[in-house]
Structure formats: structure tokens, C-alpha cells
């Protein structure tokens, strides 16, 4: 046998049992266990129930935080949102593309769920609005413009919104360039925003009516179950994160393990969540792939415990087994009965 084989093969003097057997009713024990677990689950249900916080919708988001919605929407138009800059599997950009050394699996697997935020999140929904000459003209002007011009318009509109959002985040007095009136968002731009203000006003109105929720779910077929587009659009805004922070669901709050309310969530992910709290993963742009690779190695080691020298010997060296089999060892140490 090779040296590796010798190393992997544990020294094992375990013998088949030749001692006494005791009565044991396997089916009865299993039945009692099912009964006890069922009762425990019912007890926990009666005492604690389960969480069910209603989902957010784009309609709610646009009604509750119209400026935040418009800020996210203009970034989708400009190609500057989290989704627009993400990279595979949504597009060919690179902001959220991660790698580890020479491993680039995200890039290798390519764009499998293509999303063009400009068309899918803004222009497409706007084109579903009928009988609106001002919007039709704005869309025609926007589509006919060169890319550079489109970008200048969108950036001119986005700048005051971003400055306001930053000021609010830093709890400073915001500049008086963004205001809300009668459910609309008025943005004072320093340069020309071209048709963008009209497009954003109509998109906000459509979103409030629920129209954007619907248009982002349309697909090539009638039935559909893929919520990728509306979820990514909402994730680019602030509503989901605001709700999540209030429920202790953010990554820095060990949110991976938590669920809404005071429910235990997925505590078995504690080790996975732990790696995100320590450097270098904590501040790394490649944290996800680093943590997943660490967990893959640890998972493989977990499966291969019987083959890992040292790890497989710990139970023999730390005699917790003396506690588990105390009855057995006591019977061995007792003097033999005399008949």
C-alpha cells in the first residue's frame, strides 16, 4: 500500500461484539420518538407560532419612499445601479464579479439571466403606458439620443437625488434640490436632464399603481414564477434594506442566521456567518467566494473525518466516551459475579 494509503488507513482494533444483548424494540422506540417530536413541534407552534412579514412590492416602495424609488430608477436608466453594474449572471459588467486567485467561476459560467436595466426596468414598463403624448415624445427623444447624451441627462437628474440621499444617510441637512409634492418628486437639476424628468414622473406614477410590479413579471409565456427582475430592482433601492436592518437581518448583524421577529432562523449557518465577521473576508470585495471556498474545504473535511489523521484520534484521547459508555465500563470494572 502507498504511504498515503497507510496514512489514511486508521489503526482500528475494534472487534465485533461478543457480549450480552438486551431486549430492544426498534419500532416502539421510533414510534415514541415521532410522538414526542410531534408534541414538541405542536407545543412550540402553540407558544411561538411562526413569522410571516408581508412582502414588499414596488408599489409600496414607490408610495412610501418615492425619492428613493426615483433615485434607484434613474440609476437603472443610467446603468449605475447595483444590478446594472453587477456582471454575470445578469450582464457583462464586473462590479460584483468575484474571484479567488485564478478561480473565476462567476465569469466562467457567463450571463444566464440577462437583464438590461435600462430597457427592462425603465423603458420597457414606460412603453406599456398608452395615450400619453408627453411620454411618447420623451421616449422618442431619449431613444434617438446618442449614448453620451443619454448618460449626461440621467446623471444630471441623478446627481441632486444622490446628494440628498447621502446627506440623509449622514444625517446632515440635505440640499434643497429635491422635494416631494402631491406624491411626485421634483428634482432641480443644474444642467439639462432632457426627457428624463418626464420619464421618471411617469414611471413613478406607474409604479404607484402597481404597473411596474406587473410589467417586470411579464415573460414569454402567461404563467411565470421567476421574480428575479422585481427582486433585483427592489434590492437596488433602500426599502428592503431598511426593513431588514430593523429586523436584524443585515450581514453585519449576522443576518444569515436570523429570521424576522425573534425567531431562530437558520442557526446551523453560524460558522458560515462567522467568516463574514472576520478579516480579511469582512472587508474583501471577494468575501462570498472566499467564505464559500473555506466552507467547502471544511465540509469536505467534515465528510472525511474518519480519514483525517489526528482529527479521527481526538475522541480516543479525550475520554468523553467514558461518559457515554459509563454503564458498560462500570460493568467491566465490577468484580465478576460468583455463582
Amino acid at each position: 500500500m502507498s504511504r498515503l494509503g497507510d496514512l489514511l488507513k486508521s489503526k482500528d482494533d475494534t472487534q465485533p461484539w461478543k457480549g450480552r444483548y438486551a431486549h430492544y424494540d426498534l419500532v416502539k422506540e421510533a414510534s415514541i420518538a415521532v410522538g414526542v417530536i410531534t408534541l414538541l413541534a405542536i407545543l412550540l407552534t402553540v407558544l411561538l407560532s411562526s413569522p410571516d412579514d408581508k412582502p414588499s412590492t414596488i408599489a409600496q416602495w414607490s408610495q412610501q419612499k418615492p425619492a428613493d424609488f426615483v433615485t434607484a430608477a434613474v440609476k437603472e436608466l443610467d446603468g449605475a445601479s447595483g444590478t446594472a453594474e453587477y456582471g454575470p449572471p445578469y450582464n457583462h459588467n464586473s462590479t460584483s464579479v468575484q474571484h479567488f486567485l485564478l478561480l473565476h467561476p462567476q465569469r466562467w459560467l457567463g450571463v444566464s439571466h440577462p437583464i438590461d436595466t435600462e430597457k427592462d426596468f425603465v423603458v420597457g414598463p414606460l412603453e406599456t403606458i398608452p395615450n400619453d403624448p408627453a411620454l411618447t415624445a420623451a421616449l422618442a427623444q431619449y431613444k434617438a439620443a446618442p449614448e453620451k447624451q443619454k448618460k449626461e441627462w440621467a446623471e444630471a437628474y441623478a446627481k441632486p437625488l444622490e446628494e440628498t440621499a447621502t446627506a440623509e444617510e449622514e444625517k446632515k441637512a440635505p440640499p434643497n434640490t429635491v422635494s416631494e409634492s402631491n406624491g411626485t418628486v421634483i428634482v432641480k437639476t443644474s444642467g439639462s436632464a432632457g426627457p428624463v424628468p418626464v420619464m421618471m414622473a411617469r414611471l413613478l406614477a406607474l409604479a404607484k399603481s402597481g404597473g411596474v410590479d406587473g410589467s417586470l413579471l411579464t415573460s414569454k409565456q402567461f404563467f411565470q414564477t421567476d421574480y428575479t427582475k422585481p427582486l433585483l430592482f427592489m434590492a437596488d433601492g433602500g426599502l428592503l434594506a431598511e426593513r431588514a436592518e430593523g429586523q436584524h437581518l443585515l450581514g453585519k448583524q449576522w443576518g444569515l442566521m436570523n429570521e424576522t421577529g425573534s425567531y431562530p432562523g437558520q442557526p446551523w449557518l453560524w460558522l458560515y456567518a462567522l467568516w463574514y465577521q472576520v478579516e480579511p473576508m469582512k472587508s474583501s470585495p471577494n468575501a462570498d467566494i472566499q467564505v464559500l471556498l473555506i466552507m467547502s474545504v471544511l465540509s469536505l473535511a467534515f465528510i472525511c473525518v474518519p480519514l483525517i489523521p489526528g482529527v479521527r484520534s481526538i475522541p480516543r484521547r479525550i475520554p468523553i466516551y467514558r461518559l457515554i459508555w459509563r454503564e458498560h465500563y462500570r460493568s467491566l470494572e465490577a468484580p465478576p459475579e460468583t455463582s
Partner: protein
Amino acid sequence: MSAPPTPLRPSSWTVRVREAAVEALPPERLLPDGQPTYVASWIYVFGVASIASLIVIVTSGSILALKGPAWWHYTGVGHFFNSIHLWSVELFFFVMVVHLWGKYWMAAWRGGRTRVWVTGAITFLVAVPTALTGYVSQQNFDAQWISTQAKDAMNSVGVGSFFNLTNFGQMYSYHVLLLPVAVIALVIAHVLLVRRHGVVPPFELDAQRVSSRAPAPESPPAPPAPAGGQS
């Protein structure tokens, strides 16, 4: 009782499979009515408790599946069964982790039982995405938040291109069919391996000393010696 009939064609595939199955796991070893006397600790309860939790999970999940994924949001009965489902999952992971730690400290892979450990460990690892797909299939805020956050981890290793956490239909299929079938198959394999090899004996078992000191086996008689008892 009459003797089993002689196979009409001893070389048939069916006969070979049957004979191999009976040789590997004769009925008295598959469903034993006796256990070695060292099997006397509360830690042994957690293995069967894991299976019991899985049964409650599958039962409550099946009731939820019968009525569809939205039912539990608007009926009290549905919410009740969703809660049963949630808490049986929490209990499942708790008792399974205790079971795993117990088996680690017993070094339960000894005596040719490596595959028993491996199937148990893989069961735990497959149960994790089974639960995750359940969380993202809830159709509530938890599902929205978990799917939009966890997608980055999936995408970072390329898995997101074929396992899309924000695709409810795909996640629901994984949660109610593909992953539960994998977990149940692994648990069946794990239990059959346990039955085949028997419960791992204590450390430093001096077989000669024990057999010379212990009285003759009482009723019930000892099951056939587990195969692979020696490495």
C-alpha cells in the same frame, strides 16, 4: 412452515438482487429485537429523534404542498402547519447536530463504519440547502431578503447561473421534491448501513475479557455478527 420455493431460474437478476439483499441485511438484522448492552445512553436517542423530526417535517410539508405555497398566508390552519413545519426543521437540525457530535466522540466510524459517518455528514450538508430553499419559497419578506442577499454567494461561485434563488418556481421545485428526495435517500442509506454494521462498540473493547466474564447471551439471541466489524 414450508421452505421457501427454489428459484425457477437461479441466475436471474431478480434472484441475485434478492439474495444479495438478504445476505447483506437479513430480516433479524434489519429489524433487530436486541441490542448490545453497551447501547445504554441518552445520546442514542438523538439518532432516532432525527428520523422522527424528518417524518414530522415531511408530513407537515406534504400538508402544505397539498394546498399550495400561498395557503398558509391567509388561513389559520395553514399557518399552524407552517409553524409545525418550521419548528420540526429547527428540532431536526438540533437533534441531528447533537447526534453528529455524539457519534464523533464515539468515533463511530470505527470497525469499517466509514460509510455510516460519510452518509450522515452528507445528509447534514444536503439538509442545509433544503432548508435554504424553504426559506426563499415562503413568499414573504424573509424570502425576499434572503433570496436577494444569498444570491451573491451563489453567483460568486457560478452556482447562481443554474440555481437562481430569486426564481420562486425553481426554488419551490428544489424544496418540495429534489432536495427532500436526496435527504430521504441519504437517511435510508445511512440507516441501512447502521443496521448492516451494527452500533459501534466502546473503545478498548477487550473482546476476550468481555466474553469470558459475561454470562451467556440471554433471550433474545444475539443477531448475526455485523459484517465489517473489523477494519
